[in-house]
């Protein structure tokens, strides 16, 4: 019953009826549904696990091997601190930036691109240079990006008014008045992009914590993006769709819930300069940010222990005791360390610390959107009129964010079969009900949902698709609700405990993007390195 209601809410009522009719007698599409090991994660809540069977000693334990954890590990390693262990519950590192592969190509399971880095992010630029993403610096000191990694043309297309237009900003068949509003909005955003606050800092920076705290910007964090748009007369439905698409895309948050500061940051945060690219260009790989994961992971691979669910972190006699479950052997083990970095989402961190107060605060203030990511294997599909298949393919007014073609960045001429990665943030109801309902939907029902969305643009998708693999991210990202960026809670939660337990995760950064994770990790690692130096 619940499944039915969910589907009905997720899609227009008409097409929901179509699902009911068409579920029977259809061919079964190969594939599976995988959650980010939610069943293992739930062990955490139950706490019926015994006492540790073994103890080892390490200088540092890192919990979680997402971008934040990997970046922390890399930083420790670079600074010569090599006695550390990274514990990860999944069988592979990467977290939200993990990737998969098949005989056609690699493909992302979550995060899939980064924009051209903002200037001044020296550690980040150094990292990209080391990994040949930046091949050199030109005469003006501007980075030259590896052309195999800059997103190839054609980059984006939008299916609107029965036609694929170039780019995602609605224009095809859009009335003049709306076009004017859209232009006005974009020029306002361009203005924000260049503005600096009274403290001399960029109004909107990456990482977010480098942004100006000038009150005129800070107060944008008190209202929603939708409110801000209405106050400023941006009422065009085409424009509102576009902005809502953007906030859902980057933050998994609808524009009527998203902080206006975060919403504007989406347009105004990027300031990258380059010899052969501009701030609006992006870097991408068939495996998405899995590429960056493999580079971060390179030097620290031997320190990563996968299949290890951390179940408790406590301070004992000046040491940090980290208990974890060896998932394969079902045995609890413990590591005794000088320091620990918690590179996990805050709702997990609070539970690990068994800090009731912290658990409560997070329950009240943090909301995590569930996401569904689908990898589709398909031969060439029938196309509607307009632009040819691009890297990012978006459908106007769809529940989904469209799909990215993972084979777009391949150099070869012929790619007869493709991996398409389809993104659907489950934002139509409150996160916890959406999460629960999503976990009950069968593979066949997800497939039908997908078909109903994509057959508008690829009428033959149902017959053509060969495999559909679904990844459910139950707590994909924390929402930047009003107050989250400048409310002070993030700073409070980022405070190290007793100088021993440190935090690094994108949900502490306010917005969930690669650069934030990268710097969260570096900053936490630096705290330990500085501490070691001061002792």
């Amino acid at each position, binding site marked *: 019953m619940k499944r039915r209601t969910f589907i009905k809410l997720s899609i227009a009522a008409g097409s929901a009826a179509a699902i009911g009719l068409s579920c029977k007698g259809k061919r079964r599409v190969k594939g599976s549904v995988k959650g980010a090991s939610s069943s293992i994660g739930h062990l955490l809540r139950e706490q019926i696990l015994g006492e540790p069977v073994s103890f080892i000693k390490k200088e540092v334990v890192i919990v979680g091997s997402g971008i934040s954890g990997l970046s922390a590990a890399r930083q420790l390693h670079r600074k010569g601190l090599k006695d550390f262990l990274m514990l990860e519950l999944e069988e592979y590192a990467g977290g939200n930036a993990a990737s998969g592969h098949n005989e056609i190509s690699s493909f992302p399971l979550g995060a899939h691109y980064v924009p051209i880095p903002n200037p001044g992010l020296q550690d980040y630029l150094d990292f990209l240079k080391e990994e040949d993403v930046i091949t050199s610096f030109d005469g003006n000191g501007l980075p030259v990006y590896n052309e195999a990694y*800059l997103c190839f043309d054609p980059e984006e297309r939008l299916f609107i008014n029965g036609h694929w237009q170039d780019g995602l900003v609605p224009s095809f068949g859009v009335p003049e008045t709306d076009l004017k509003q859209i232009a006005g909005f974009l020029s306002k955003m361009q203005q924000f992009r260049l503005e600096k606050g009274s403290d001399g800092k960029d109004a909107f920076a990456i990482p977010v914590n480098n942004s100006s705290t000038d009150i005129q910007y800070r107060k944008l964090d008190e209202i929603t993006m939708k409110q801000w748009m209405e106050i400023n007369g941006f009422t065009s439905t085409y424009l509102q769709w576009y902005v809502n698409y953007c906030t859902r895309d980057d933050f998994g948050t609808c524009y009527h819930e998203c902080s206006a500061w975060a919403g504007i940051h989406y347009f105004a945060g990027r300031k990258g300069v380059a010899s052969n690219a501009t701030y609006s260009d992006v870097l991408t790989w068939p495996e998405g940010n899995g590429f960056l994961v493999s580079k971060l992971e390179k030097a620290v691979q031997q320190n990563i222990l996968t299949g290890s669910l951390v179940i408790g972190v406590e301070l004992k006699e000046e040491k940090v005791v980290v208990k974890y479950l060896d998932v394969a052997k079902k045995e609890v083990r413990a590591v005794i360390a000088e320091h620990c970095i918690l590179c996990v989402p805050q709702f997990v961190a609070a539970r690990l610390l068994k800090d009731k107060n912290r658990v409560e605060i997070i329950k009240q203030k943090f909301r995590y959107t569930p996401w569904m990511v689908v990898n589709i294997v398909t031969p060439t599909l029938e196309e509607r009129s307009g632009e040819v298949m691009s890297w990012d393919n978006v459908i106007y007014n769809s529940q989904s964010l469209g799909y990215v073609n993972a084979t777009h960045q391949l*150099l070869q001429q012929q790619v007869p079969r493709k991996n398409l990665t389809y993104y659907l943030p489950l934002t139509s109801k409150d996160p916890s009900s959406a999460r629960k309902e999503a976990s009950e939907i069968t593979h066949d029902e997800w497939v039908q949902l997908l078909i109903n969305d994509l057959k508008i643009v690829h009428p033959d998708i149902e017959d053509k698709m060969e495999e559909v693999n679904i990844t459910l991210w139950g707590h994909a990202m924390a929402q930047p609700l009003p107050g989250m960026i400048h409310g002070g809670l993030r700073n409070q939660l980022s405070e190290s405990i007793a100088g021993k337990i440190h935090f690094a995760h994108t949900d502490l950064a306010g917005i969930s993007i690669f650069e934030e994770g990268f710097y969260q990790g570096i900053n936490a690692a630096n705290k330990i390195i500085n501490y070691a130096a001061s002792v």
Partner: protein
Amino acid sequence: MRAKEHSAEWVLLLAVLVIATCGLIYELVAGTLASYLLGDSVMQFSTIIGVYLFSMGVGSFLSKYLSGNLLHWFIRIELLVGAVGGFSAAILFLVFPLAASFQVILYSLVGLTGILVGLEIPLLMRILEHKVEFKELVSRVFTFDYIGALLASLIFPLILVPRLGLIRTSLFFGILNIGVGFYLLYFFSAELKKAGLLRVTAVVLLLLELVAFVLSENILRYSETMAYNDQIVYAKSSTYQRIVLTRNKREMRLFLNGNLQFSSADEYRYHEALVHPALSSIDNPKRVLVLGGGDGLAVRELLRYASVEKITLVDLDPEMTRLFRSQSILLKLNGNSLLNPKVKVINSDAFIWLRNNTETFDAVVVDFPDPSGFSIGKLYSTLFYNYLKPALKENGVAVIQSTSPYVAPNSFWCVDETLKSVGFFTKPYHNYVPSFGEWGYIIAVRKNKESWFQHLPSSLRYLNATTLQQMFVFPDDMKAKIKLQPNKLNNQALVHYFEEEWGKFLD
């Protein structure tokens, strides 16, 4: 009873007429097909007529070994002719890519039809020998035989080929043959015992040919036949592209995905211009790389340089290189170049191959199709040329086919701009190739050269010292009209220029 005898005779004589017509039609179909596919129509027609007539003789000779129920035999042969002849054109089209064995199959089919037709007249005469007076018999049978021949020779060129095409013509007469057999089965049912199997065979064959006939019409409707003015002699969709060869009286043309790659009438102009300005500027070129160019025509030109020791040809499509390594008429065109022991053919994606390549070459000939889409546009990008650079020796010379500077000046000069942006020194040039129009090429070197074109081979048909000099002069109408972007993977500038310019041209 007498009346029945009488009409039986006429039925059989009419059968002779049909058989004679059909037989000649099959022969004409084979002759026409062979001259389409293999060229040299005088040769093809005379050998096919020769083989056909000879096989008829063989058939007549063999007829004496047939005994028992002659009518039974007659119908059996009738059905066989219908099957073999009816499907002959379709079979020949299908097996043409089988290359060397094509001729064997062609002459086997012609021979078989000849033998079967040759069997029929003597058989018929034996069937009728006790029913009609001998002089009457001979006169009637042969009259009908020759009337049939006349009929065939008139309707074939006037009605059949233009209306039905070759495949359907032969199927149509196959159906007629079988129809006659079927009718005879019915007419002589009293005299034919145990003809059940024969009847079933007839029905099955009839159905098969009818289906093939209808389908061939269907296929025809969707096929590119309409798009080409000339007869298609070969068409195949490989994994990578649609390869179509057409021919008319003068020339043979190769199309890849509908785009003309060359015409046999003037391809030498293109390939001489593509290869010799670069190669003649290298002292003792030894190792040469060809990217694209699976037709082996550029390789043919390269083999004129005695110093060349090894040519590596990288072409995506194994079907292309196989075709040009095995089809006699294409081998004639490329002078067996791809079979030369100096030539190594690699079927691989050029971009990926070049990225992984560590070998260096004295010369590189880049002969890709025009940048008409985002996929092929990658092969003209800064990244591609960056990979090309280390494959070229310090003193080496590369040349790139770069579309028409007359139709698409922005596209042409964009390629030049792109090459320069990655540090090549360039020398753009052009010549006139009638089937393409004014065509452009760009020489690229890693460091500037002083002496050029020192070693031009003699006995070229188009290039000499004078024509060579002229190629480097660009009149104003072949110059770019705007400031051009280099073509990069993330802007595909060239594809945008190309679409605009050629789009306008073809409107």
